[in-house]
């Protein structure tokens, strides 16, 4: 067989690495595509080095991993390339929705408390799914044996459902007993009592500066 030119060698090595199913080591290149062509390791090294340089400005790069050489997309493109693969996640189960609603309406709440209400255990998978979706998060731990996590909904949860605050969630109608009117009166009474209490306190000078300090967290209080 005629000797390969430098360009031919580069082409063969380049194409081989691109079409192989696995990274290709220099040994593998020599024993397969370059078999019988008597290419010195020095020449092969040179070809690989040149290819690495050729691809440096491109969207993919020639890199060496433990089992050999392969082409791989550039770091900075990962964000866009991820969009090539989209998976439709399965619909949420009833158990998940019930758990979410309990966390929304009864927060902060522990897993045990959710289980008490639902009468069945809450799978870790559900908590994980809700956490990954950034709808719930742990806001503390209840000081009872086991220090269970206290779950609450996030701002992301409110954004998703298009409400400004939890108070804007639909009222929980089924919760028996008190007719609406009575409830409202009760609430008003409660507010009034507390408001009066607070009004009678004088806000100290100090607290003004404390409030300023709290500045960055302001939106979290809403």
């Amino acid at each position: 067989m005629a000797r390969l030119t430098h360009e031919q060698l580069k082409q063969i090595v380049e194409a081989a690495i691109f079409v192989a199913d696995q990274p290709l080591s220099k040994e593998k290149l020599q024993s397969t595509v370059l078999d019988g062509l008597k290419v010195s390791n020095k020449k092969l090294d040179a070809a690989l080095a040149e290819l690495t340089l050729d691809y440096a400005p491109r969207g993919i790069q020639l890199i060496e991993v433990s089992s050999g050489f392969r082409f791989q997309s550039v770091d900075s493109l990962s964000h866009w390339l991820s969009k090539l693969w989209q998976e439709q996640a399965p619909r949420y189960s009833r158990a998940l929705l019930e758990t979410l609603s309990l966390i929304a309406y009864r927060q902060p709440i522990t897993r045990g408390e959710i289980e008490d209400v639902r009468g069945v255990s809450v799978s870790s998978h559900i908590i994980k799914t809700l956490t990954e979706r950034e709808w719930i998060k742990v806001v503390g731990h209840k000081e009872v044996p086991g220090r269970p996590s206290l779950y609450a909904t996030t701002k992301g949860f409110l954004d998703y459902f298009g409400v400004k605050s939890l108070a804007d969630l639909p009222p929980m109608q089924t919760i028996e007993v008190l007719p609406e009117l009575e409830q409202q009166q009760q609430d008003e009474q409660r507010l009034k009592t507390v408001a009066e209490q607070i009004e009678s306190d004088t806000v100290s000078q100090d607290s003004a500066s404390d409030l300023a300090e709290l500045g960055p967290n302001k939106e979290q209080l809403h």
Partner: protein
Amino acid sequence: MTQESAPNKPPIQQPLPLAFVNGEAMIDKPEDLYIPPDALEVILEAFEGPLDLLLYLIRKQKFDIVNLPVLQITQQYMEYVEVMKEIKLELAAEYLLMAAILAEVKSRLLLPKRADVDEDEDDPRAELIRRLQEYEAIKIAAQEMDALPRMERDVFTASAEPNEQVAPIKIQPEVSLQDLVLAFQSVMKKAKAFEHHQIEREVLSTRERMSRILELLNNHNYLGFETLFLVSEGKAGVVVTFLAILELVKESLVELVQAQPFSQIHLKLREAEEDAWQG
């Protein structure tokens, strides 16, 4: 017939007759085809059917299809078919059909022409010629298709690995506010069935505020009591915060700390009584 010839022996080293027909007749093997004497059905495999065989005979004799010399072709064709009948009759059915067609064409050509029939319309070879030409066109098309550079044989897909950071994007299921409310209603109905558990009504904004205060306390060890009240929220806001703090204290989630009478009150997360849980 001798068995010593291996199928991969070159054809030129085979002086043996191709086959015996009716005990002694023999024919030459096609010059450009290698047919092992002990595997005559290869004839059938070498040709893709009677049309292919006819085409072969025509091309071999350098005949023009359009002027199909029916007599010669029929003769040669029949020789092949005789061989097939001897060896593998069941494979030869399609070839026999063609033999019948050829015989029919031959006999019609032999009949004297009638003067009153427009001869242009009635060449008995026409249909056969059309079929041969159509078949030849497809045969050539198949050869050309086979010659096209194709995957796995001539070209290979060039691919690169996605960077490790490339992760599939999950399309999350949609949930409506109504789904959420319905779920809550259903869970509450169920809860009622468990009578031992009592559900009390709570003002939602208070629960929300409880969550936020806990969050804040996760970031600060101590929070000044007053710092939690924002004048900008008005009276209602202040009340909600106050109720939330009371509720947190009641549920033993936070404690209020005052160093001395009248000094500032601080909120802190309730200390974990670590030792108590480790045993």
